[in-house]
Each structure stands twice: as C-alpha cells, then as structure tokens.
C-alpha cells in the first residue's frame, strides 16, 4: 500500500487521574500531538477517536462531537470508532484509510478512556461487555476469566509454565521504569507475581493490566505532504484488521488467536515485510498470556514457544525482538480506547530515536491491538 506519514504524536500521563476529566485527557494528548507535528488546528481536516465505552464509564455517548467541541475543532468531521479494547488501533486504521482514499489530507487520530470513575465491580462488568453478553458475561464470565482459560490451554498444550507468564509482567514493569508516561514505575519479581492474589486461576493480579485513565493521539498525513511538516516522518507502511467469533467458546482453538494471525498476515503483505523484519513490537498484553499469544500468532516466535522465548530474554530490550518497550498494557497502563493509539506513539518514538532509557535500535516496528478475547485484531507496520 502507499505509505502514510505520522508527523506528530502525543500522550497524557497514564494512571488513576482522579482530577482530570475525559475531555481534558483528550485535549492534552491532542495538543501535544499537534505541537509535535508543528501544525495548527486549522490544518486538521478530520478527527477519528477510539473509545470503548464512554456510555458505561462516564455516561457519555456522542464522544466524537464532544471532543471536536472541546478541542475547538468544529466543524471538521469527527468520528468515533469502537471495537472494545481494539478501538484505538481501529481508529488509526480509519485515519490511514482516510488519507489513502484522498478524502482527507491531515487527520488527527486519538484514543481516550476514563475508567476510574467506576467501582472495580462496575468496571469488570463493563469490560465484560466486550465478550458475548448473553452467553459469556451473563453466565458469570469475566475478561480475566477468558484469558485464564486461554492460558490454561496454552500451558496444557505447549507446557508453558506459570513462571514464564510471570516473566512477561516482570519484563514489562522493567521497561516501564524508563517510560515517564507509564502508570507503574515499580520493579517486580517473579516471586511477587506468583504471590499476588488470584484473580482468575491461573492468572493473578500482577498478570493483569490495570484500570487506567489516559489518552493518546497521532497526526497523519500523506507521504507527499509529510515533508512540509517534518524532516523525520515515520511511515505506516502496512495495516491489517481481522475479526473472529465474539465468544471464545465458538472458536476451533483457544491457544492461538486467529484474528491476530489474519490481521498480521494482511499488514505484512501490505508492507511487503515478513515477521523476521520486525525489530520492535508493541503487542496487546492485557494479560501476560496475551503477549505470548500475540508474539506467536504474529510469527515473531514459533507457535508454542512464546513462554520459552520470554524466559530466554528474546523479547527483552537488548534481546532478538524487544516487545512492549513502553511497558505494555501491563505496566504502562491500559485505558482501553487509547491503547491502540498509544502503541503507535511508542513505536514512532522508538523509530525516531526518542525513546530515552528504553531506546532500541530499530527501523521497522509493529503494533498489535486486540478487542475482546480475540474477536477483533488490528496490526500496523511502521518504518522510518
């Protein structure tokens, strides 16, 4: 496909931001991205916003209008994109398509979620709406529960160990120490993960991404116009998206995520790349098993070998293929609608050489965002 340039990126601090409102979050990330791009708000042609559940988290729908209003961007077209935790990644893809179609020339893509205004029970219930409401959530299933059943099958089929799952969390917390925007700046050990409270066996609290407020934003334009704005554009060279059944129980297998595989295949093909070309990846580690499932289905490691690869340091900074240098969803935080956009921000910073203490040497990066238990997946390839 033709390349689309990322000319600006912005983030808010991720965390429990009691004193910051939904629209403040977006405005902060958006302002940062527009400043970074060196453009003016009047240059922006269209706005796409990833948001999972404003309706349940803060009793607010019509998010796209709210944001265009509070960002002072009316009357440009503003569109909300929703696919549960993949909302942000899908918003990026909508922005890419808007540029490639020629419909718009400068597009702002944001993602935002305000999650901490609800109790843990209500938040758990809201996240479970990403599953099949009538046949999973209604029966008492939760999101950690779904991933726990995937983890149990992976352990059963491939011998993945409890310790290997924990090592994903340990690695991502280590990476987050060097990310000023991350929710957690705390080093953890395998022993601490294994001693943390069980949430849904075999997954424990420190296997789970936290509940997070945050926003992320990128500015996109065509390759032709990119040089007007910056000398160091990063290009989105491939985009892939796939669906699968909404319920985990309707799939042929649960130890492999078909939607990730299919989205990856499309993204690699569009970019003319192969898994072996990828030098840094941000993948969807909402739960530790999620990272293992992701790197396997994306072809970054052999199927079944994700646990071992993690244990051997292949996915650590300095390893063969550093994964989740930002700290991932686990330690950077997971404001669900913002996550897919924040992943693109991290890979752009890496490719520009602006990732500070977590910098790796990379020219080709990948982002991978999942909705639900694997009902939606979206993958982007970025290159400098």
């Amino acid at each position: 496909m033709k390349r689309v340039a990322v000319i600006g990126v912005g983030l808010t601090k991720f965390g429990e931001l009691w004193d910051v409102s939904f629209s403040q979050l977006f405005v902060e990330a958006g302002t940062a991205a527009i400043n970074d791009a060196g453009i003016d708000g009047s240059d922006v042609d269209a706005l796409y916003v990833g948001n999972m559940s404003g309706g349940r988290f803060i009793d607010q729908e019509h998010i796209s209008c709210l944001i265009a209003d509070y960002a002072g961007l009316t009357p440009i077209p503003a569109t909300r994109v929703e696919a549960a935790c993949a909302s942000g990644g899908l918003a990026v893809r909508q922005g890419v398509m808007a540029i490639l179609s020629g419909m718009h020339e400068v597009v702002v893509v944001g993602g935002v979620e305000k999650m901490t205004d609800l109790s843990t029970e209500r938040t758990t219930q809201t996240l479970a709406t990403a599953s099949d409401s009538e046949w999973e959530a209604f029966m008492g299933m939760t999101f950690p529960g779904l991933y726990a059943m995937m983890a149990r099958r992976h352990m059963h089929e491939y011998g993945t160990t409890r310790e290997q799952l924990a090592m994903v969390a340990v690695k991502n917390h280590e990476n987050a120490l060097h990310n000023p925007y991350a929710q957690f700046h705390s080093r953890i050990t395998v022993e601490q993960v294994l001693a943390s409270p069980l949430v849904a066996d075999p997954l424990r609290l420190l296997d789970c991404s936290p509940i997070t407020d945050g926003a992320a934003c990128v500015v996109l334009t065509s390759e032709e116009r990119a040089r007007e704005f910056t000398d160091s554009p990063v290009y989105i060279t491939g985009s892939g998206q796939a669906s699968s059944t909404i319920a985990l129980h309707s799939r042929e297998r649960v130890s492999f995520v078909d939607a990730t595989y299919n989205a990856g295949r499309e993204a690699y093909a569009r970019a003319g790349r192969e898994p072996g070309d990828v030098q840094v990846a941000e993948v969807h580690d909402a739960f530790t098993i999620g990272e293992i499932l992701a790197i396997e289905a994306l072809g970054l490691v052999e199927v079944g070998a994700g646990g071992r690869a993690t244990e051997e340091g292949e996915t650590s900074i300095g390893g063969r293929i550093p994964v989740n240098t930002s700290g991932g969803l686990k330690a950077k935080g997971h404001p669900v609608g913002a996550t897919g956009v924040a992943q693109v921000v991290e890979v752009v910073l890496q490719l520009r050489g602006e990732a500070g203490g977590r910098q790796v040497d990379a020219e080709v990066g990948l982002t991978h965002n999942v909705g639900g238990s694997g009902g939606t997946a979206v993958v982007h390839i970025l290159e400098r």
Partner: protein
Amino acid sequence: MGMMSVPRFWRNTKARYLMVGRRCRRCGQVYFPPRNLCRRCRRRGELEEVRLSGRGEVYSFTVIRTPPVGFERSAPYVMALVKLEEGPMVTAQLADVEPERVRIGMRVRSVFRKIQEDGEAGLIYYGFKFVPVDEDDVQGE
C-alpha cells in the same frame, strides 16, 4: 453484563432451560448457543432445532475470584469451556465440585440451576450449569 430485560431473557428460554440448539440440515454443523444463520452455509443453510444431551467434557476452566456485579455472593466459582458431545463448546459454571479437583478432560453433565437474581424482589434467572459425571469428582456434603 448486568440484569437482562424480561423479553431478552425470554427469547432464549428454550436454549437456557432445555439446551435446545440448532443443526444445519445442509452441512450437519450443530450450533449452541443457537444461531439463526449457519456460519458455513450462510444463506444456503437450513437450521432446525436440536436438543442437546448436555453431556460433555471440560476443555478449559478458571476460578473466578474477582466477580462482576451480580455474582459477588457466588465467588469464588468455577467457570469452564465445556465441549459438548454433539460438537459445540459452551461457557458455563461448574457446580458441586471442588475447584482443586477440576481438570481438563473431566466428564460433566448439565443441570438446571439458578444463574443470577435481580435483587430481593426481581427476576430470578435460571439456566444450565454443569456438574461432574463421575461420583469421585462430585463435592461431598
């Protein structure tokens, strides 16, 4: 999810109370929970009702310790993917079993139980759960 409206629940009582699913006459695929379109044959498929035996085995499982709204009093409880002998897999709670005894491959059968209730005076939602088939696996008194 939270509580279901009366019509939303009522539309599926055959499936929830009797485990009535669908079978495609064209390709033979059995669907449970029921669907209105065969995923393989789509428009060309022809779905008929089929009552399932309720027998199957545990494909994977977990113990929910952080429950959603409505299940606070049940936690911790065992949730499983049950592979039914007719082919489909379903998500359900396992009852009458010690969490420590559940294992992949354990044989189970469906039973009619209360799933949730809408407070003191609201609807009671019934449906299926699964219990172990083998006496040794059933939780003692």
